[in-house]
């Protein structure tokens, strides 16, 4: 009796979850893939390999990779400072890290323009350049590595580091031999998340990049432009490339998590 009610419960909740996801996520994505194949594989390839699309994809992926590497270094340092260092106002600094999660991306773009744009009070004007893209991507991805590395460092016994230091290891050696192997999976999954976010970013880039084709136009902005001009087939084709990249990154995060927790499960 209870077993059958349990099975009914499983069926009910699964039915709800599956229907919800199908209507909301699966069907729209299927419609996207469908649209991209409408003109056949040749049409898809032509759309993706058009010079403007290739320039946008190269710029997007190249900048996003650079930003996620920057994120790995600066994020790890920030996480280390937040865990191992003591100074006044540390909890405030810790809270500020999450700001990019909470702040609307369009506001992020506008704030960067206010400081690093034409009316910059410090005389640094990088608006409508590739530097602006780097800044905007760094802003929106800032929390990822910090927040994946911080909990690992917190669990890591500081005595291991101190022991390495007292045995004569330099700061860099103790980092490389003691800290790094432990935080490496966290850094990797943080980087993958940052990469996914940076590749797909739109709101923060719209204002500050000026969207100049072949110069500062990233793929999401290119897709938006194609939609505006009614060329949804081309928009869908490039969108499918971004979709595939998202899938690959999600999959790698899954694999990293699998290996990182294998000791816990054994």
């Amino acid at each position: 009796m209870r077993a059958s009610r349990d099975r009914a419960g499983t069926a009910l909740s699964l039915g709800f979850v599956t229907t919800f996801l199908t209507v909301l996520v699966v069907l729209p994505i299927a419609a996207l893939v469908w649209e991209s194949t409408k003109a056949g594989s040749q049409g898809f390839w032509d759309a993706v390999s058009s010079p403007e699309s290739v320039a946008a994809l190269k710029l997007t992926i190249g900048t996003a990779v650079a930003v996620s590497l920057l994120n790995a270094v600066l994020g790890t340092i920030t996480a280390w400072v937040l865990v191992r260092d003591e100074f006044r106002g540390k909890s405030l600094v810790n809270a500020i890290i999450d700001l990019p999660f909470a702040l609307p991306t369009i506001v992020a773009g506008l704030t960067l323009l206010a400081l690093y744009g034409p009316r910059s009070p410090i005389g640094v004007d990088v608006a409508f350049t590739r530097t602006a893209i780097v800044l905007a991507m760094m802003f929106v991805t800032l929390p990822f590595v910090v927040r994946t590395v911080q909990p690992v460092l917190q669990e890591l016994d500081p005595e291991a580091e101190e022991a390495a230091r007292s045995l004569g290891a330099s700061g860099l050696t103790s980092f490389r031999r003691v800290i790094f192997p432990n935080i490496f999976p966290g850094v990797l999954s943080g980087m993958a998340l940052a990469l996914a976010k940076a590749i797909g970013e739109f709101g923060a880039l719209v204002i500050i990049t000026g969207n100049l084709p072949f110069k500062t136009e990233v793929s999401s902005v290119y897709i938006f432009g194609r939609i505006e001009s009614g060329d949804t087939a081309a928009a869908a084709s490039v969108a499918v490339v971004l979709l595939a990249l998202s899938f690959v990154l999600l999959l790698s995060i899954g694999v990293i998590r699998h290996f990182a927790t294998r000791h816990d499960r054994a």
Partner: protein
Amino acid sequence: MSRLGLRLLALAYLATILVAPLVIVFWRTFEDVGAAWDALSAPDTIHAFKLTLLITAIAVPVNTVFGIVCALAIVRRRFPGKGLLNAFIDLPLALSPVVVGLSLFLLYGREGWFGVWLGRHNIQFLFALPAMIVATIFVSLPFVAREVIPTLREVGDEQEQASRTLGAGGWQTFWRITLPSIRWAVIYGVILTTARSLGEYGAVAVVSGRIQGQTETATLRVEEQYEQFNLPGAYAISIVLALMAIVVLVAMTTIRPKETA
């Protein structure tokens, strides 16, 4: 020495990327309070904020219910394809908002699979509130489930089983045992969902049609003001959105310690 150096490096990093730009926007807004007030009190701006709040008020409860049911299914039930579902709910986090918007645009557009039916029944879905709500639900989908799943795993199911053995029904067990034990995770997820819904731009930009005073949300209004060369207006609306984000941030920081305790 090196400790101090690293501290300064980390603080400089946060200052250049996060704090300084925000400070400048606040400063610029208060340089010209009159213009800021004009922009904020314009009927279209007020409408935009109301619309943003309305969309959030619908998207957040929907995603909360979905997130809890989904987390319970993933942690407590056995079924084939569980790993796939677990990976799949993260997709909205990794997907470009423009791609999300385009997908919905194609499904609900005039020639889309749903669009044809909607058109025949004269239902305005795309470039109207329904599509904007669906887009917002899509982008903020995983947050509640992501927070609740680890908590559910951690608390285990002994208490739930005990409650069942003592004769409590499924509903009773959920309300009396399960929900209280995951409530901080749910609240944290709700906060993240709210922040994402209030700030959504890309997906809504594609499906809303951006009609001033009708389908323009607060974030779309910021961009529109910027396009109109009304920088003080764009700053003023941004500041209100930033203040909302700071409220969210404060809520996040107050709740986080409870979650780890």
